[in-house]
């Protein structure tokens, strides 16, 4: 038994193979299709229906799940299944004429329009809800602030509204799936699959459902069907049922085998998750770092130690240089084995908050600058320019100091985005060069900032009041999102840190907390760049205590967890230090090279009213950047007073969007757009058919051209009422003579002679004969134009596109 492999499979050199003979034009073998489409039997229809159902459920279910649309999926599925059943089991019956099919299609279209018309209010709201959900998805993915349109119904009615709006689309989708299956159109299914695969890595699509599986299975069956239709009479659905049966049996057997191997789900998920993580990591490295060896761990605590290159990481130009922390990657959420960004969908729920904050000029990234301005300490005249050029650091982050007053490079601070933790690094390979205005050195130190704030907070100026109002709103977000602590870590921290703070209500004093954390960490751990990574098994704190050593990332992670234990919002940060050593002998305007060895990780905490401040717990690092430990802001340690209560509840959805009229217009314009699209497609179809015909008449071979003209007449003349000639133009001469006069019978007779000479004679037609044939065709078309009724002419021109 010999197997043959497809052409792309590499093979050895062929021996004495004979060249493939070319097909002669004088001898032909054709496959004759049946004269009339046979009525499909039950297995045929069932096979096509099965595949259509799989496609419909896969596409529809994936769509609803992707955008989390609140719709009655069961009802829409029922409508689609009914349409599929009618298409495959009823329409092919010989009793169903073409007119009845057109009437049914028209009825469905009219019914959809009537449904929308009679439920206008609800359907319009359904459109708005769908649009909002779609925008929500993209807003979450791209961290954008997108407008949400006003919905005028209660949330309890969302399901009904969306369902009413989507039912016609479900019907259309089901019919499209039927056509795809019947005609073995594999291209749309392949396109859907590729789209899903492209969206997958963006974490947009949620593939954790059976719908994606159905779509994949259906697309696989559809491709099988398309391949089987090559090279001859296309297969109908008969083969699909037994083929699907064999595949289902094989899948079942394989699944049982997998289950028998034990815990397949965990192994599979673990394997692919690791694979996905590895692929993401490689893509990230190539994209932002240009090499396979990554730099900073970016929240991945499993990486052992620090693997850094020997190159310089950053090139900085200061107007007034001073030591600082340059914040890059920010880890917001502790996963148990590392740090990640906040859940995008959760952050998207704060769109209105950030919209308002940005409208009022409050950006968390430049909060210290805003505070300085509100305190009257800073203005543009005191700006200190700083230019950063990224040489070898990861470009997915923009490295900015805490004392950031303004971002001079466009695109990094976007009012329409919710990325509050860090600056945006746009572009495929990130931002390589940027410029800031930074606060003077004396305001950059935490103690100075806090001290100044404390002096004025009780009697704030108008600017400070305005700042505090916005800050209170932001603080609410901070306390909701940056105080989470796993229970397993909480248990480990209790013995060393005592009573925990209650986030949002009480927390330990900042100074007390930091002192305690600093002393606990330095008594229990030793800093080592070669510390082993943490793989997420068990408690991080316990593991570090047992090892008694930690690298920078682990130190910072422990500090963040401890701060959160104390009730203080905290985050994990990675970046670079500009140390006093780096600035030795540096004059204003000089270029400072920050080596890769200055990469580090630290904690940052939120000081109420002030903003995010760094807290570096690695021994010696604080001194290196001279941030120090701020003096006591109030007498004694212990609990601070609870943070000032919010002046108001979290803001509701911004009412400023005037979207109702737009939604109404969009809703009524939608059918018009559909109609315009249909009209465009109709015109395009006519244009394509006509130009194809003209190209066939203009071929170089005169014999072929005349044969093409004859084929066209064989299609055209029966359409104007002449009897079907069964492929012989000679049989049309008499009827044409009877219909239009003897002269036309003679013309058609002459055309027959020319055709027979072209088709069967070894001679070439002359130019005059070809021209004569063209003139005959044109004369016939003119005759049809003169004699046929307007309705017939319309049908011939615009429906059948015959001329």
């Amino acid at each position, binding site marked *: 038994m010999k197997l043959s492999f497809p052409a792309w499979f590499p093979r050895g050199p062929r021996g004495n193979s004979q060249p493939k003979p070319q097909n002669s034009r*004088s001898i032909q073998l054709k*496959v004759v299709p049946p004269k009339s489409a046979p009525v499909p039997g039950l297995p045929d229809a069932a096979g096509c229906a099965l595949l259509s159902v799989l496609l419909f459920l896969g596409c529809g279910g994936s769509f609803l799940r992707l955008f989390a649309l609140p719709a009655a999926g069961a009802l829409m599925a029922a409508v689609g299944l009914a349409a599929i059943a009618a298409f495959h089991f009823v329409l092919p019956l010989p009793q169903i004429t073409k007119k009845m099919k057109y009437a049914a299609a028209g009825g469905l279209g009219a019914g959809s329009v009537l449904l929308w018309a009679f439920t206008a209010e609800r359907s319009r709201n359904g459109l708005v809800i769908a649009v909002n959900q779609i925008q929500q998805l993209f807003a979450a993915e791209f961290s954008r602030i997108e407008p949400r349109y006003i919905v005028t119904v209660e949330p309890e009615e969302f399901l009904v509204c969306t369902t009413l709006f989507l039912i016609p689309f479900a019907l259309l989708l089901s019919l499209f799936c039927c056509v795809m299956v019947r005609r073995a159109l594999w291209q749309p299914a392949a396109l859907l699959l590729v789209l899903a695969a492209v969206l997958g890595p963006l974490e947009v699509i949620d593939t954790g459902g059976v719908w994606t599986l159905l779509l994949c299975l259906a697309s696989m069956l559809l491709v099988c069907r398309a391949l089987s239709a090559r090279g001859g009479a296309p297969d109908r659905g008969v083969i699909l049922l037994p083929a699907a049966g064999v595949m289902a049996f094989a899948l079942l057997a394989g699944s049982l085998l997998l289950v028998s191997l034990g815990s397949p789900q965990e192994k599979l998920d673990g394997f692919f998750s690791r694979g996905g993580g590895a692929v993401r990591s490689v893509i990230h490295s190539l994209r932002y770092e240009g090499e396979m060896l990554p730099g900073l761990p970016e929240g991945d605590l499993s990486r052992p130690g620090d693997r850094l290159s020997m190159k310089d990481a950053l090139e900085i130009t200061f107007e007034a240089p001073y030591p600082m922390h340059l914040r890059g990657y920010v880890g917001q959420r502790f996963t148990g084995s590392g740090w990640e960004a906040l859940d995008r969908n959760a952050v998207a729920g704060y769109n209105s908050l950030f919209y308002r904050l940005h409208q009022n000029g409050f950006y968390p990234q430049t909060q210290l600058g805003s505070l300085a301005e509100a305190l009257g300490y800073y203005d543009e005249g005191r700006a200190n320019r700083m230019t950063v050029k990224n040489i070898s650091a990861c470009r997915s982050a923009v490295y900015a100091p805490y004392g950031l007053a303004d971002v001079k490079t466009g695109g990094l601070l976007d009012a329409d985005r919710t990325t509050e933790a860090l600056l945006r690094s746009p572009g495929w390979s990130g931002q390589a060069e940027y410029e800031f205005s930074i606060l003077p050195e004396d305001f950059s130190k935490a103690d100075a900032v806090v001290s100044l704030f404390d002096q004025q907070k009780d009697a704030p100026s108008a600017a400070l009041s305005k700042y505090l109002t916005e800050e209170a709103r932001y603080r609410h977000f901070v306390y909701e999102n940056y105080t989470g602590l796993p229970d397993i870590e909480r248990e480990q921290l209790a013995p060393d840190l005592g009573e925990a703070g209650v986030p949002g209500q009480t927390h330990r004093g900042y100074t007390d907390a930091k002192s305690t954390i600093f002393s606990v960490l330095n008594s229990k751990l030793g800093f080592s760049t070669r510390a082993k990574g943490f793989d997420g098994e068990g408690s991080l704190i316990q593991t570090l205590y047992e090892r008694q050593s930690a690298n920078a990332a682990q130190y910072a992670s422990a500090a963040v967890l401890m701060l959160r234990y104390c009730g203080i919002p905290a985050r994990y940060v990675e970046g670079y230090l500009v140390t006093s050593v780096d600035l030795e002998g540096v004059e204003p305007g000089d270029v400072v090279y920050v080596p890769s060895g200055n990469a580090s990780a630290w904690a940052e905490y939120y000081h109420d009213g002030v903003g995010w401040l760094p807290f570096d717990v690695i021994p010696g690092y604080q001194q290196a950047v001279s941030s120090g430990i701020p003096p006591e802001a109030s007498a004694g340690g212990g609990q601070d007073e609870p943070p000032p209560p919010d002046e108001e509840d979290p803001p509701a959805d911004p009412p400023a969007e005037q979207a109702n009229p737009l939604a109404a217009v969009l809703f009524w314009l939608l059918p018009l757009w559909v109609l315009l699209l249909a009209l465009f497609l109709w015109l395009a179809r006519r244009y394509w058919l006509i130009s194809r015909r003209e190209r066939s008449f203009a071929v170089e071979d005169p014999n072929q051209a005349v044969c093409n003209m004859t084929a066209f007449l064989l299609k055209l003349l029966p359409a104007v009422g002449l009897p079907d000639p069964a492929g012989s133009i000679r049989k049309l001469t008499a009827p044409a003579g009877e219909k239009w006069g003897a002269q036309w019978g003679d013309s058609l007779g002459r055309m027959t002679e020319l055709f027979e000479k072209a088709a069967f004679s070894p001679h070439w037609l002359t130019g005059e004969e070809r021209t004569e044939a063209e003139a005959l065709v044109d004369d016939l078309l003119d005759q049809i134009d003169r004699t046929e009724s307007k309705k017939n002419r319309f049908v011939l021109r615009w429906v059948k596109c015959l001329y």
Partner: protein
Amino acid sequence: MISPLWLWPIWLASILLLCLFGGSTALRALLVLLPLLLAASAAVSCLASRRISLRLSSRELAPKRRGVSAELSVKNDSPFPLMQLRCHMTLENRLTGEQFTRLVAVSLPPFSSRQVSLSIGSRHCGQILLSTGRVRAADFFGLISFPVAAKGRAITTVLPNTFPLRLLTGFLNLSLEESEEYDPARAGEDVSEVHQIREYREGDALRQIHWKLTTKYDNLMIREPGRPIKRSLLLLFDLRRPAGSSPHPACFDAAAEAAVSLSQALLDEGIVHTVAWETGDGPIERRTVQNIDDLTMSLPGALSGHGERIPGTEQAGELFLAPEYSRIFAVCVGRPLSPPPGDRRTTVLCCTDRPKGEDDTPSDTLIWFHPKTYPDELGNLIV
């Protein structure tokens, strides 16, 4: 257009991406089980391929320039479905050497058969052989195929058209020679043999009157003379391709038409003759042609164009020396046959597509004709 087989790498890459970045265990299981699906599909196709039978059928005779129906019947006797059976069909005109190949694919459910209607058309006459070349059973994914042992074959002879060919008196004289056999259907001029007795009609010769029967029946009766059957005329069809040359297929078509037209003209004159053709490896086939049915039955063999004609090895040379034939016509293509020197009874009609030269002046022994103008060149054949 991209080959559909490239769909599979695209499909696989898409699934892989979805599995890596998505979270569906079922989808991941599908990817892991894919090799099993491939194996199952291949196994099913392999098992089904062993129980496939094929049959080709077509009409035996067909007119030129018209489509002739043929049918490919395929039967699957296995309990497994066959997603695609690919038959590489070859259509060959054994006279002209023209070929046409085409892929015909069918799908077969278990225990079922399919008929595929085909249409064969040929611009030239000749023996058309329709056969299945490579037949392979492909799996569900179209990636792996297995050979199918079943083969099919059908032969159709496309008959040449004829043109009117006028024979001159040289032929007619043949019928006056004596013979042991007389034509039972037609009267002649051999008074030694009575064809039939009938009543006198105006125009009959007086010497034909049978006086004895006339007195008996009291009515003028005449005796019609018999027509001797002379088989001494040989028409040789040597329509093989001469070695070292490649005449245009139209030459073979024209030569066949000329030979058949000549034979028909002889039959129209009542001249029974012998038709012979080369069979390639075997001896020359000869057949007596007394009527149009005999001629039609000879054509499948005569138009098969077996093998290649190598000068000097033709068995026709023996025929040229055979004494029983008083007249020989040999129709060939490309290069003329070579009768013995001095042979005045043989006339070679050779069809060529090369431009007419000085050597092409017709003579008594060699007549050139061209595939585009042969009806005019041979319409008035002087032999």
